[in-house]
């Protein structure tokens, strides 16, 4: 969407799903979920069958980092001025059109903002980290097992790939890097379209165009031996909030070195006409010493969501593997010439 993704699209494309606040059906919503200050007078729209209406395309791009930067320790919420300063310095630092770093830096900045779409703003709450729990805004310490797993994975990714399995799931076009669960802001395609029927909610992430179907009928999770890359999601309504519970992940997961015991609980709540509050809690005792939670206010955006055919054009994987083989061959030949 927008200037992001694999292609450069015109901006002036019209939204395909854009329920305006006026499309609410006039039913009185429960007051509980509207108790947040920003939502005092606003009434969350409902679907014709009475469920909170979360449909539309939502943008979770932000430059607010997952973890609170060390220099902001103790400062959970930025003032307006601090937020503006943070945005300014972050954008300056990331600016790929800078030419002040020499040739190597220029190559590193080869992809400019035609490609990248990190967003330009901090989240609306001005919190200095997406993490809201623990209160210090930092991911809790790893367990010994989690540390070991993470280090092994990192070593694999640092080295030349013997085959595609040595690269991450995103590079392999098996999963979208930011598509989750949980969804986390990334470099581009930070968009998700929600569809609702009385029986299910579907989250279609633009990244790799991956639809996650969430049944709402109270059925149990899949049998524990049936494991999936995106896990297995079940949903329920709690007042105005959609709660999505996901288990049954398989190894390796796509989320920060988590184990297949990862349990993700996501909460979606409309807090005003243009904002869908997205909260998630991560529980994986094999990886982190305690559960942790983050919150991202997603902004309503215009569409449409585009096709993202990742695997079909994965020249990156071909080049990466061919490069690794070429380096090995060169090293072999150098060793032959200069045997020690």
């Amino acid at each position: 969407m927008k200037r992001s993704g694999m292609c450069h699209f015109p901006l002036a494309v019209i939204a395909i799903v854009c329920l305006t606040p006026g499309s609410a059906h006039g039913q009185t919503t429960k007051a509980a979920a509207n108790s947040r200050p920003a939502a005092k007078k606003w009434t969350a729209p409902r679907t014709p069958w009475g469920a909170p209406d979360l449909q539309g395309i939502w943008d979770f791009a932000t430059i607010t980092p997952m973890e609170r930067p060390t220099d902001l320790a103790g400062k959970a919420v930025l003032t307006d001025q601090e937020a503006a300063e943070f945005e300014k310095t972050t954008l300056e630092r990331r600016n790929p059109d800078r030419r002040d770093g020499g040739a190597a830096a220029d190559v590193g900045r080869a992809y400019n903002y035609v490609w990248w779409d990190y967003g330009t703003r901090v989240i609306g709450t001005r919190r200095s980290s997406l993490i809201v729990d623990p209160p210090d805004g930092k991911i809790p310490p790893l367990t010994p097992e989690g540390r070991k797993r993470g280090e092994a994975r990192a070593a694999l990714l640092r080295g030349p790939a013997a085959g595609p399995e040595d690269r991450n799931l995103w590079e392999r076009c098996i999963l979208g890097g930011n598509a989750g669960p949980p969804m986390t802001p990334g470099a581009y395609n930070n968009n998700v379209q929600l569809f609702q029927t009385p029986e299910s909610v579907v989250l279609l992430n633009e990244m790799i165009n991956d639809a996650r179907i969430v049944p709402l009928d109270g059925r149990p999770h899949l049998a524990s031996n049936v494991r999936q890359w995106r896990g297995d999601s079940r949903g329920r309504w709690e007042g105005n909030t959609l709660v999505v519970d996901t288990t049954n992940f398989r190894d390796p997961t796509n989320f920060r070195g988590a184990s297949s015991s990862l349990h993700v609980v996501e909460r979606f709540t409309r807090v005003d006409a243009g904002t869908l509050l997205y909260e998630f809690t991560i529980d994986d005792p094999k990886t982190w010493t305690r559960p942790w939670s983050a919150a991202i206010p997603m902004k309503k955006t215009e569409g449409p969501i585009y096709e993202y055919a990742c695997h079909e054009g994965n020249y990156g994987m071909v080049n990466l593997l061919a490069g690794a083989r070429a380096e090995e061959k060169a090293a072999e030949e150098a060793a032959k010439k200069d045997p020690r």
Partner: protein
Amino acid sequence: MIAIARVAVAAALLVAVKPAACQAPAYKAPRTADGKPNLNGIWQVLGSAHWDIEGHAARPGPVVALGAVGAVPAGLGVVEDGPIPYQPWAAAKKKENAENWLTADPEIKCYLPGVPRATYLPFPFQIVQTPKSILMTYEFASASRIINTDNAVTESPIDTWMGHSRGRWEGETLVVDVTSFNGQTWLDRAGNFHSDSLRVVERYTAIGANALRYEVTLEDPTVFTRPWKLSMPLYRRLDRNAQLLEFKCVEFVEELVYGHLRKKAGK
């Protein structure tokens, strides 16, 4: 309910045997909240159209080790007014595709299957119907496409694998007009194909509680001499707690696609 379901299945079977019978459906589907026929659900085609949309006898498969499991089952064909009206060059190309199936078929590489092939692959797909847009999401390769029924987006800015879909309701029927294909998808495992000039018009009509009639017109002046039609029933998956499961086939084709670039053992 059981009696109704039985009638529905019988009706579906009749349509399957006599695809030319095209009269207006007597069945009226339950309605969604906005009054449209409710096509929500998980659907799947039965048969062997994914092997060959034209009528064909059973034949051996190309992989000796797979024996009976790898053989191609016979099929009555789903082309209504066949044979497929290929232009002479395209008939030759179809033959060449069939001869080079293992290396040429995009399905084997886990590429997005295009439309209508996605519908009759041997995998379920789910229709998620909302007033302004309909999501069709397929188990194969996690393919998806959005069908706009409010026609807010009339033109696709770029050609795609799954095409650009615009939908409208004609009485009991969802009509989907699909254009902007990239021309890299096929129609089956027998080498039937199209170009990027393809225009597909799909018609989805409930013919019972648990079956849809699926009719497709294919128009491609680069490849065919005239428009032609496919027709087949789609059956509702009635399994308890039916859900689409993952078939993220990239993993299964990495050796095929990248194996030649793998580090050799012992090096």
